[in-house]
């Protein structure tokens, strides 16, 4: 294990790779700070750039953007009460009240430290789990993959913030987008309306349209917000000895629960932070302080979302099955670069596999080191008005998509997905399940077809094979729970 990790470190420390690791985390932090541009947007914006890089460097950079944005997201939450990323919504709850009390510096220090500790716990778990997970993943056949993908899609809709039915509809829509192009088995074209669609819909167009453009259309014209001023002196930022002692529990609990939720299919950093907040409030002796600037409410979730950002790479790299929309993009980026993620990735591409994992550690050290010294710069960035930002985002989207295949049709497709993304949000449909359905749909179809072919159409295979049975059982539990909660909600509505 150690020698593998050293091989990874060797890969990252190569100057040509190291530069991109640094660029990735800095862009990530920057994106996290800027409200209105999320990690998905940033990763999709940079996808075309990665075609000019090798697969290892690409993934190290894109991964850096993802976990870097978790650090940056909390800065806007604390100073503006405006979360930079979905997972930093929770940071607003106790971070902003602290800033209002003149403790912004301390809140920023605690989130940076918690992020770092959480990430280290996550990285440690990734290193320990990688080899056993890859060996375990080798036992996976078509039925296991089919049931895991099905469970992942179901779990993603279960934990979505909106209605579950609407999220399921979005997954189905995403699967439909994934069907467009040629059928894997027969080669027949499906839903190809113009010749340019013969290769299927480009992931770059879909992601940039749904997330990048959709967000822009929604946010143009938003009013400028005033950021709270922040004092950075050692006395202002350091917590007292008693406060620091009280943070050990939340950090460990947050890091542990975050690592768990990050590794599960369908859950991600956002869910991990909400869960950690709920846990901290439950175990706290002073739950009434939560929402008014409780340190545990700040550090637990922050450790959790960063730990989850690391462990979400476990199923992505070892099984090739993404847990959330960001990981779906990572899989897409790997495939576009000619690398097939899955159980064989570790043996076929050890430098890539361990290089990515080692880059987490290096990236987090860089992030921790630049977070506080550059706080004035981040505060300055927060003050950039959105009307100076969005035209550049639109340009990056147009030029990025065009340069990918020199195709004007791709640009127009991106626009269509952008309009779709805006309309979906307007009607309370979430866009993230569409992307997940798009990436997982073809996997589901291929493995389901293969299972039915190999087992003569016998559905009991999903119950008789032990790993399948676990996934099927979990899926059944999710369905039962959501029916139960819908009925309960219906009863509660009727009694009001």
């Amino acid at each position, binding site marked *: 294990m150690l020698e593998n990790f050293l091989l990874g470190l060797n890969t990252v420390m190569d100057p040509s790779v190291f530069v991109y690791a640094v660029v990735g985390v800095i862009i990530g932090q920057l994106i996290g700070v800027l409200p209105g541009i999320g990690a998905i947007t940033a990763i999709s914006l940079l996808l075309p750039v990665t075609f000019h890089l090798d697969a290892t460097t690409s993934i190290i950079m894109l991964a850096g953007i993802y976990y870097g944005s978790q650090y940056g997201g909390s800065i806007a939450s604390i100073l503006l009460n405006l979360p930079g990323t979905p997972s930093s919504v929770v940071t607003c709850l106790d971070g902003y009240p602290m800033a209002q009390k003149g403790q912004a510096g301390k809140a920023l220090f605690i989130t940076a430290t918690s992020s770092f500790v959480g990430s280290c716990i996550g990285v440690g778990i990734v290193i320990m789990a990688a080899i056993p997970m890859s060996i375990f993943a080798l036992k996976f056949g078509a039925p296991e993959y089919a049931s895991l993908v099905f469970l992942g899609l179901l779990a993603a809709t279960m934990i979505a913030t909106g209605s579950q039915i609407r999220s399921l*509809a979005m997954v189905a829509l995403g699967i439909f987008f994934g069907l467009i192009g040629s059928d894997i088995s027969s080669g027949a074209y499906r839903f190809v309306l113009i010749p340019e669609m013969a290769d299927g819909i480009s992931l770059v167009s879909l992601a940039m349209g749904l997330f990048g453009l959709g967000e822009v259309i929604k946010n*143009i014209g938003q009013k400028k917000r005033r950021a709270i001023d922040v004092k950075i002196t050692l006395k202002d930022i350091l917590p007292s000895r008693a406060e620091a002692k009280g943070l050990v529990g939340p950090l460990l609990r947050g890091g542990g629960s975050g690592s768990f939720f990050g590794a599960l299919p369908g859950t991600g950093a956002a869910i991990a932070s909400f869960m950690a907040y709920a846990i901290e409030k439950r175990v706290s002796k002073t739950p009434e302080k939560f929402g008014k600037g409780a340190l545990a409410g700040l550090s637990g979730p922050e450790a959790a979302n960063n730990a989850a950002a690391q462990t979400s790479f476990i199923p992505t790299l070892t099984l090739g099955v993404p847990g959330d929309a960001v990981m779906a993009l990572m899989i897409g980026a790997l495939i576009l670069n000619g690398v097939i993620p899955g159980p064989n990735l570790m043996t076929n591409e050890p430098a890539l596999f361990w290089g990515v994992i080692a880059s987490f550690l290096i990236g987090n050290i860089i992030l921790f080191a630049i977070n506080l010294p550059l706080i004035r710069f981040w505060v300055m960035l927060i003050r950039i008005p959105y009307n100076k930002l969005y035209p550049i985002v639109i*340009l990056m989207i147009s030029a990025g998509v065009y340069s990918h295949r020199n195709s004007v049709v791709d*640009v127009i497709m991106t626009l269509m997905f952008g309009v779709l993304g805006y309309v979906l949000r307007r009607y309370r449909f979430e866009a993230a399940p569409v992307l997940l359905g798009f990436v997982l749909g073809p996997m589901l179809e291929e493995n389901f*077809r293969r299972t039915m072919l190999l087992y003569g*159409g016998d559905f009991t295979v999903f119950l008789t094979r032990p790993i399948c049975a676990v996934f099927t059982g979990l899926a059944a539990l999710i369905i039962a729970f959501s029916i139960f909660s819908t009925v309960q909600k219906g009863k509660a509505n009727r009694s009001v």
Partner: protein
Amino acid sequence: MKTGKKFARLEPMFGSLALIVAACFVLGIGWGYSAGKLTQMGPGYFPRIVGFALLGFGALSLYSDVTNPTVSNTRFEWRNLAFVCASILTFAALIDRAGLVPATFVSVALATIADSQNSVKSTLIYTLCVCLFAWGLFIHVLELPLSAFGRG
């Protein structure tokens, strides 16, 4: 007046209705592909499952829109939508024929106008700066295969 009221009442259902239309599209076209059988699925088997799933979920979300109508508290941003569309379409129209810089100029200017807070002077200065930035970033730093002026 009456039509306006009717529109307002139906508006929350548009999303779900669009999904049902999409499901009909998937089923309509997907039915033309051979389905095969469960053990030997053809290209049309899975699209039918997806089509029916879309139809089912679309119908269920329509039911929830009818029983529990939620009116969005934000208005539909027609202006934003129109200018963003214009911006990207002009970029698409100009990039092959005129090159990156002219395409960027027109596209960014149109995008900037979407926000009514921007004045003409600030739009012009800002657009020129972005053109310079785009030329430096895309052509010189990222070395994307784009031509600055004219056909590539």
